[in-house]
């Protein structure tokens, strides 16, 4: 029932994730932040097994930081995506990570980019991506309404439309969503869409 989706706009990339932490029929909390700020200009929205999600995303975050200290410059989004894919691939035939990731980043020379990273180490560079049951609705909405070089307002509106579809059509829809954005000024939280208080 977890949903993570994202899209690329003009000079920015957006990642939206639900904020529910669920165990069978119990909702532990509805303000769980699943979009990790990987470094100053990267966002990583992750869905899947809660333990694997935390473990893998934190591991990637520390390795990205280590690279920066060692080399004096941060990893590009493409390099970070490939690093993640490599780690997932190595673990796949032994002890797979059940995590699906949408990686959004902004690089000074190549602009915004979005990567779709599957739990079986699929890697695709895309303009729009979605995971979970919500992806059926989010991808359809984005296929209909997305166009390249959208403004932030247009993209937020599209994200809201996707959230509305998920809320109304998914039998056990998540209650709250968080939207985070990354552009030349960095990665940051944009806003929340709540139906319940935390």
């Amino acid at each position: 029932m977890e949903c993570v989706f994202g899209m690329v706009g003009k000079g920015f990339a957006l990642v939206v994730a639900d904020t529910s932490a669920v165990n069978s029929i119990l909702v532990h909390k509805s303000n769980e932040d699943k979009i990790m700020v990987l470094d100053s200009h990267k966002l990583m929205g992750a869905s899947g097994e809660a333990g694997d999600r935390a473990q893998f995303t934190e591991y990637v975050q520390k390795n990205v930081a280590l690279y920066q200290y060692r080399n004096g410059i941060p990893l590009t989004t493409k390099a970070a995506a490939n690093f993640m894919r490599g780690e997932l691939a190595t673990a796949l035939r032994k002890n797979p990570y059940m995590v699906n990731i949408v990686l959004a980043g902004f690089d000074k020379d190549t602009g915004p980019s979005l990567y779709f990273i599957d739990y079986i180490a699929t890697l695709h560079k895309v303009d729009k991506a979605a995971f979970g049951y919500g992806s059926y609705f989010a991808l359809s909405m984005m296929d209909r309404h997305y166009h390249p070089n959208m403004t932030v307002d247009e993209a937020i509106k599209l994200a809201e439309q996707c959230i509305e579809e998920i809320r109304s059509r998914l039998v056990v829809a998540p209650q709250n969503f968080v939207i985070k954005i990354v552009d030349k000024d960095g990665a940051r939280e944009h806003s929340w869409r709540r139906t319940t208080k935390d």
Partner: protein
Amino acid sequence: MARYDRAITVFSPDGHLFQVEYALEAVRKGNAAVGVRGTDTIVLGVEKKSTVKLQDSRSVRKIVSLDDHIALACAGLKADARVLINRARIECQSHRLTVEDPVTVEYITRYIAGLQQKYTQSGGVRPFGLSTLIVGFDPYTGVPSLYQTDPSGTFSAWKANATGRNSNSMREFLEKNYKETSGQETIKLAIRALLEVVESGGKNIEVAVMTNEGLRQLDEAEIDAIVAEIEAEKAAAEAAKKAPAKET
């Protein structure tokens, strides 16, 4: 496999570890490095040999970041330093990953010193030929610290210390002139100590300042300005000394 398990660092009959002492000699031949702890600022200064004209100086950073809040300067074998620094950087991130907290200055110093000690008690290896000065602010408490390690693996905290070439002269100067300082005064004290043994000028010194906000490397122009200030103060002090003598 040939017998590479024989220890290189063994005790001498009179209780010395000569390899460690020779490593300390290597440190004594390395470039001068000084560290001064203030109340809100910690300063690291390192001597830069200016004889290399064709070298791209940006690729030779002598004061390095281990994490956002920890910096290190060293004297001795720079290649050995690369290895230690790499291990320390990994440990900083590993600590963050396992306990979700940044390292304290003492923790990472103990780690580096522990590594240095291991290589004095293992087969087929030689000690690291460098002493390090480690500075930083502890997370949450914000307490500034300056630590020194040496090839034997000992470490301790200092208010101010020097290592490398002519470290004794610098330490003597610091012992005479140290007092609790903050901000610009701490920077001046560190540079004054370095100038005791290094040729004056911005291109012969590398200085970095650690505050709560992080590490800042001073550029040549800034260092030149502070050096000029120091020289002016020295000249004024000299003049003041001579003036009363004239009256009598």
